[in-house]
């Protein structure tokens, strides 16, 4: 009896202790580790995944549904001609190093991003800014060279966050922002820790500390989640394991959409893909549902153009490239390739590409197109496919939001060169009224669909696996972000 009492008492202590510990700290896993911690120069999405909305904030920001809401700018006025934006900044905002955030910092950040020698990965976001003027300590005026209907959207990107001149030199290893969490520690190859910023200007987050871990191997991801080594996995890499988590009362599975248009990229300047008939033949050879089922275990929405289906301006163009192997064969014959041809298929690591690649290779073989599959690591893929354009076919998911403008760049890796399309996009950039923009976006989507620039496969889904008690996680990924501001253990 005596024994039993002691045992019961110690158990109670242990229970209390673990309960108390679990309240305000969280371990989040994502697939890739950021190469550095500067969202204003690095192109890697993992940087934003860790830092966006947690450590860094911009003038505006994306909310969980992808809408543009206030960020450091609490309000703004747009002049009649659409050229002048006057931002009123939030008062009492300090950076994590104690320096104040004011209009000078905004001017510094925007001027730095749009400068001639800027290394910003998305310089196009800032291309229309003609001038940034400090009106008062908390008022800044941005003048555009031409009206840009996307300006507030552009300012919400992770590449447009506000940084301080005092801490800019060490930003790549010690990021200093204004967000609800401050950077605490980064053990490269292992984990990155954030701690609550107690002098945050906005609503204080529920979590005290957050640890990010980086697990790209699907088997390791499954094991880490099952063992509860991590509390949340954003972008779980093995869709085949999701039903198991959904059936387990310890976990919840959030199936969301992303801005990731997954495409079979074709090298438009390389034979035989310079012939639209061949490109069209390729798209008709592809059975999208087989790829979604076989590679993604059903997670994904078919797309007929390079545009996110959850966007209200999306046009359903799937009919242009329906699965029809006979049509594909006759198109190849018309292009003078009745006997088919051989090309390369270069695949980056994610399972949508590796598994999808095997399925596509099999589907193309059925119409006479032989592919030599090469599996590449991301660094090799960037070099061979993206930079040197040495490929015939490749599969990749374009996860930037509203990125149809990549088709206006003839140097972009798939090398689509169409002056009519560029004219439509120029009109789009100059148009601010919503109806006009919708019409132009529809036109742009239709052009690239009917030109069969690439094989448009499916919109990549994102699965977040989390402990059942956790609330406040983003379901969708309107931008690469793991926003912990509203996350708590739900009690």
């Amino acid at each position, binding site marked *: 009896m005596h024994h039993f009492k002691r045992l019961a008492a110690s158990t109670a202590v242990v229970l209390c202790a673990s309960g108390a510990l679990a309240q305000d700290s969280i371990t989040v896993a994502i697939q890739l580790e950021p190469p550095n911690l500067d969202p204003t120069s690095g192109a890697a999405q993992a940087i934003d995944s860790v830092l966006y909305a947690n450590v860094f904030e911009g003038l505006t920001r994306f909310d969980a549904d992808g809408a543009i809401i206030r960020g450091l700018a609490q309000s703004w006025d747009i002049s009649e001609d659409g050229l002048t934006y006057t931002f009123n900044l939030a008062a009492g905002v300090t950076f994590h190093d104690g320096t104040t955030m004011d209009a000078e910092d905004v001017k510094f950040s925007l001027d730095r991003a749009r400068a001639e020698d800027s290394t910003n990965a998305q310089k196009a976001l800032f291309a229309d800014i003609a001038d940034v003027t400090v009106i008062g300590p908390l008022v800044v005026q941005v003048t555009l060279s031409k009206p840009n209907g996307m300006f507030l959207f552009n300012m919400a990107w992770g590449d447009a966050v506000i940084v301080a001149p005092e801490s800019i030199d060490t930003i790549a290893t010690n990021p200093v922002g204004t967000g609800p969490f401050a950077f605490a520690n980064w053990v490269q190859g292992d984990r990155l820790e954030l701690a609550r910023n107690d002098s945050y200007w906005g609503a204080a987050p529920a979590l005290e500390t957050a640890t990010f871990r980086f697990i790209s191997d699907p088997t390791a991801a499954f094991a880490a989640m099952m063992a509860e080594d991590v509390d949340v996995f954003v972008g779980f890499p093995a869709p085949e394991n999701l039903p198991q988590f959904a059936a387990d009362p310890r976990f919840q599975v959030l199936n969301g959409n992303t801005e990731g248009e997954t495409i079979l990229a074709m090298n438009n300047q390389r034979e035989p893909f310079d012939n639209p008939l061949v490109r069209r033949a390729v798209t008709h050879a592809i059975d999208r549902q087989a790829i979604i*089922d076989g590679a993604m275990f059903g997670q994904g929405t078919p797309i007929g153009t390079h545009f996110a289906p959850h966007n209200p301006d999306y046009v359903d163009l799937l009919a242009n490239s329906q699965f029809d192997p006979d049509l594909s064969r006759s198109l190849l014959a018309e292009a003078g390739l009745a006997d088919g041809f051989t090309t390369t298929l270069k695949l980056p690591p994610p399972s949508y590409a590796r598994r999808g690649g095997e399925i596509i290779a*099999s589907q193309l073989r059925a119409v006479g197109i032989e592919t030599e*599959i090469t599996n590449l690591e991301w660094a090799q893929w960037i070099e061979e496919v993206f930079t040197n354009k040495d490929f015939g076919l490749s599969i990749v998911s374009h996860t930037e939001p509203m990125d149809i403008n990549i088709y206006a760049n003839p140097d972009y890796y798939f090398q689509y060169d169409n002056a009519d399309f560029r004219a439509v996009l120029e009109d789009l950039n100059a148009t601010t009224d919503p109806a006009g923009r919708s019409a132009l976006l529809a036109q742009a989507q239709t052009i690239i669909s009917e030109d069969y620039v690439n094989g448009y496969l499916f919109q990549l889904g994102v699965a977040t696996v989390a402990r059942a008690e956790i609330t406040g996680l983003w379901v969708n990924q309107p931008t690469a972000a793991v926003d912990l501001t509203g996350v708590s253990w739900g009690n």
Partner: protein
Amino acid sequence: MSRNLIIGAGLTAFFTGLAALSFLWTPYDIEVLDIPNRLLTPGGAHLLGTDHFGRDILSMVMMGARTSIAVALVAVGIGMGLGVPLGLWAAARRGSLLDDVIMRGNDLVFAFPSLVIAILITAVFGPSAVNAIIAIGIFNIPVFARLTRGAALPLWERDFILAARVSGKGAARISAEHILPNIANLMIVQGTIQFSLGILAEAALSYIGLGAQPPTASWGRMLADAQTLVSIAPHVALIPGFAILLTVLGLNLLGDGLRDWLDPRIRVVRT
């Protein structure tokens, strides 16, 4: 004949037979994917079930046997073809500078962990079955060279070699006509062991994506593909795993059995 030899020969014959049969016939075409019928359990139309693409696993195992055996066989061939002559040459010129150069060169190759260098080779020259063969083959060379030299050295002191030398035969001719036949047993046994190691190495390389590329079937890649499916469809991972296990076990038993059977000293003791 020992039991080991019979079991080993049986298993080896079975998998070699599967590989040979795959040239003529497989139950299904593994290049055709059948997504709606994926992850079927063994039995019915698919004797060993289907994988995550709906491919017939029995057909995959047969095609994979062909890849494994072809890679290992050619790799052992490279090792024997270069290693045995090198070893014979070193033995014929024992004690000379040439002997030193050959044997220290072997030590150099031995000094590196073989799989790590195989990974390096396939990473530099690109993953493919051919590069896997070369990578595995290179590491078979010193194994055979060393064994050959070791076995040939005492033979050079024997009277019948002396007789051959007196009759005016050159070192090369003596090596080919007198030394080689006397060490052939050893080479066959070692070849069997290296063959099983070659199959393991091929599986390891394809497991990490550096072996034969899809759509060529490979046991190692079947394992890697099935890894995340273990909890929902264990047979997809177990079957290629058992194929590797049984083939390697068979070859090792065969090697052991052959050694006992071919070694005259042990045979005398037994009879």
